[in-house]
């Protein structure tokens, strides 16, 4: 992880340097014009959220069953990143929706469940903070359940007719609007690299904390 940090950070910086240029250059979408350009980061952030939730779920499961400290570090780091990327997803979606739907918020299935996902991982962080000793295990349970409900968020749009664009939009985007297709996957890749970089930084913090705890324990002997 450490060796890859600098090159990955450089890659992320480079991708994010290009992203605004690419977004400015891509043609307008026919019905939503300028405001649709939020889509490129909005979709990308949800890709980062998916990756983050997966990492948290797997790490939580490993920690709960094996007790590996490193797994716990990755679990809490990715839970925090989930809330960060999810916040941006909700805010960018709200800003886009203000223009596209005329309202700041709609209680349709996908928005509700995205909000719910944010609450789940905020709950994760709360239980770690206020759960007293042994809270890491409780939070791990939260992480596992949160990750398990995430697929329902994706599917909910297909099962429940809503104002939110259906998942079929992405499936036909490649044929109908190739410039957007390429750009959105570029932005998603950029966000995933950013996710890895931030995860490494956050895990480093946890490892330092663990080292400090060990030092305290050693000092008491």
């Amino acid at each position, binding site marked *: 992880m450490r060796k890859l940090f600098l090159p990955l950070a450089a890659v992320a910086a480079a991708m994010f340097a290009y992203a605004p240029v690419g977004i400015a250059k891509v043609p307008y979408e026919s019905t939503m014009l300028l405001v649709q350009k939020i889509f490129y980061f909005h979709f990308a952030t949800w890709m980062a959220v998916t990756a983050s939730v997966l990492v948290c779920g797997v790490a939580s499961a490993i920690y*709960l*069953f094996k007790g590996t400290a490193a797994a716990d570090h990755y679990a809490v780091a990715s839970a925090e990143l989930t809330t960060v990327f999810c916040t941006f997803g909700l805010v960018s979606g709200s800003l886009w929706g203000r223009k596209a739907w005329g309202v700041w918020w709609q209680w349709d*299935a996908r928005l*509700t*469940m995205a909000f*719910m*996902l944010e*609450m*789940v991982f905020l*709950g994760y962080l*709360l*239980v770690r903070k*206020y*759960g*007293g000793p*042994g*809270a890491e*295990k*409780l939070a791990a*349970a*939260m992480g*596992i*359940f*949160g990750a*398990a*409900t995430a697929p*329902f968020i994706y599917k*909910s749009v297909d*099962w*429940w007719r809503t104002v939110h664009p259906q998942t079929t939009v992405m499936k036909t985007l490649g044929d109908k609007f190739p410039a957007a297709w390429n750009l959105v996957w570029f932005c998603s890749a950029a966000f995933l690299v950013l996710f890895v970089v931030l995860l490494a930084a956050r895990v480093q913090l946890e490892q330092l904390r663990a080292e400090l705890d060990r030092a305290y324990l050693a000092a008491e002997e």
Partner: protein
Amino acid sequence: MFLKVAILVLKKDLAIEARSREILYTTLFFAISCLLIFSVAFVKEGVPAEDAASGILWIALTFSGTLALGRTFERERYGETLRALLMAPASRPAIYVGKLLGMVLLMLATEAVLLPLVSFLFRAPLFARPLLLAALLVLGTVGFASVGTLFAAMLVRTRTRDVLLPILLYPITVPVIIAGVRGTSALVQAPPDEAVATLWIGLLTGFDVVFVTLALWTFEPLMTE
């Protein structure tokens, strides 16, 4: 063996409850007082808002269910019986299932009283399709109680358990509540939309399978010190 342990745990809970009926009555009356509060919000000039009944029913269930969970495990903690249960040479998942069954029965008892009251007070034809409604309620209750029992059990030693339980439980069970409310709304319409209700019943079944499996899987490591 598994089933025997589960039934034993269930019988123990029922026996304790039968003596004082404390949790049953308090849960029931809390749910009814929820209805009273909701009537303030959802009734305009004496007429209940259309379609408010399904939401009110499920929210009253959620709130009273959360309290019941807290009370049940508080009782275990107070009597230190949870530790005794865990020390018994019985499979942990079986203990979980026993407690889950007790919780489900308690919530179903609450629903049995709540349904006619909601139907009556908020003018909703809840009994138009009783079988589908029963399926929705049973599946929704199992979904809610499965996660609730697990979380309440794991939080029992935590200082802030009273407030952490709803914080953790509600976001996870939102899919169950949504399915319950939407399904009930579909049944309350005139004419009742059976196709939509069946769709939500299917979803609830999926949720239940996932949640119960996960809970059975994680109960053991969570309850171990």
